[in-house]
């Protein structure tokens, strides 16, 4: 024989859970279109910083691919930018695993002529005040990658200055800029050696 208070407590829990679920799912239902819209707008804004003049629905044309890059197997999202149905650039979302504090998620734009359209950091865990200068909100350092290619600068120069290369690093932070330089170079290398579609 189960005691009465236990049954009452059970009923109470069921009632509260049901009502809570109702309110949460109602809110979710009301906000989901707006949230989806916000996410898409952010992505379009990010893509737009690297490429313009495309006339395709770039989010709908997105495809995913399993590739080995930066020494790890990963699934990357690729957004082809097309003009008159001809792809002239790819924007690729990829993860570089060797930042100062682990993964750096990047969006890199590469033209079909294998020049960089630019690089942007999507998420990172680099040290605030030191490594976070790779973020466009903190400094314009990362904008220097636009227009570079495997021959400009020469492959031996694709390093930070303290390693004998062409890129400035930040005071007190060498590992983070080194990571971005290496990641960008490896993307260029990958695109020059592989068919993308």
């Amino acid at each position, binding site marked *: 024989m189960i005691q009465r*208070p236990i049954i*009452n*407590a059970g009923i*109470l*829990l069921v009632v*509260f*859970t049901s009502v*809570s679920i109702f*309110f*949460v799912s109602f*809110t*979710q239902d009301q*906000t989901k279109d*707006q*949230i989806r819209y*916000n*996410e898409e707008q*952010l992505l379009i804004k990010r893509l737009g910083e690297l490429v313009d003049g495309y006339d395709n629905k770039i989010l709908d044309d997105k495809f995913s691919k399993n590739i080995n890059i930066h020494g790890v197997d990963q699934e990357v999202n690729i957004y082809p930018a097309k003009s008159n149905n001809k792809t002239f650039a790819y924007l690729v979302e990829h993860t570089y695993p060797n930042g100062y504090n682990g993964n750096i998620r990047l969006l890199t734009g590469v033209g079909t002529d294998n020049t960089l359209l630019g690089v942007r950091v999507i998420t990172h865990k680099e*040290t*605030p*005040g*030191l490594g976070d200068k790779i973020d466009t*909100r903190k400094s314009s350092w990362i904008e220097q990658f636009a227009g570079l290619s495997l021959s400009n600068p020469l492959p031996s120069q694709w390093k930070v200055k303290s390693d004998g290369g062409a890129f400035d690093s930040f005071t007190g932070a060498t590992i983070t800029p080194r990571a971005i330089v290496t990641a960008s170079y490896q993307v260029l290398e990958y695109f020059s050696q592989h068919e993308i579609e």
Partner: protein
Amino acid sequence: MDDYIKITRNGLWNNNQALVALLGLCPLLAVTNNIVNAIALGAATTFVLVCSNVTVSIFRKQISKEVRIPIFVLLISSFVTIVELLMQSFFYDLYLILGIFVPLIVTNCAILGRAEAFASKNSWDKSAIDGLMMGVGFSVVLVILGAMREAIGNGTLFDQSSLLFGSVGESLSITLFENYQGTLLAVLPPGAFIGLGLIVALKNLIDVRTADASSLVSHNENVAANSVGSP
């Protein structure tokens, strides 16, 4: 009326959740890099506190003692989820910055603490005031700490206000020192601990001073009373 004043005073000063109870330190220390983050998290926390306090106090007679904690947690987490969804749809940029700390409002012990210690024993109007004042008291500490860390760490105040207030916010941003290199310590977690410690110390100092002053006053009154009484 006296009750309300007492509740307000408790929330803002005497039992300030951040300075006296020292609850909710995880979000307090993590998001107070700048004022805008602090305001946003403070507002979200206050909203959840008021909602959970009111709901708990309305149903306090129905909620049996044995299952009250699971029900409180359920209510709080529902409100937090709702806040998170609303923030994602209306303040998306801000949501991206605050990230994990919005869902983590659930783990702010101050909210469960007020539900258990106050709302489950008091009427809904008192609980609402209590939630509001506890929330405001907590937010004020967040904002002071955020201002200290932003000013020392970055040399700015209200940076990125546009995330919270739209285009109006851009004019709010103040640069205190031009070409300021920043003080890393203030931005990193140790800076948050040191800053909070200083604020707690300041509050205690003020409490000690006012206690001294009032005992001095009552002492003087006693002396005066005695001298009048004696010939």
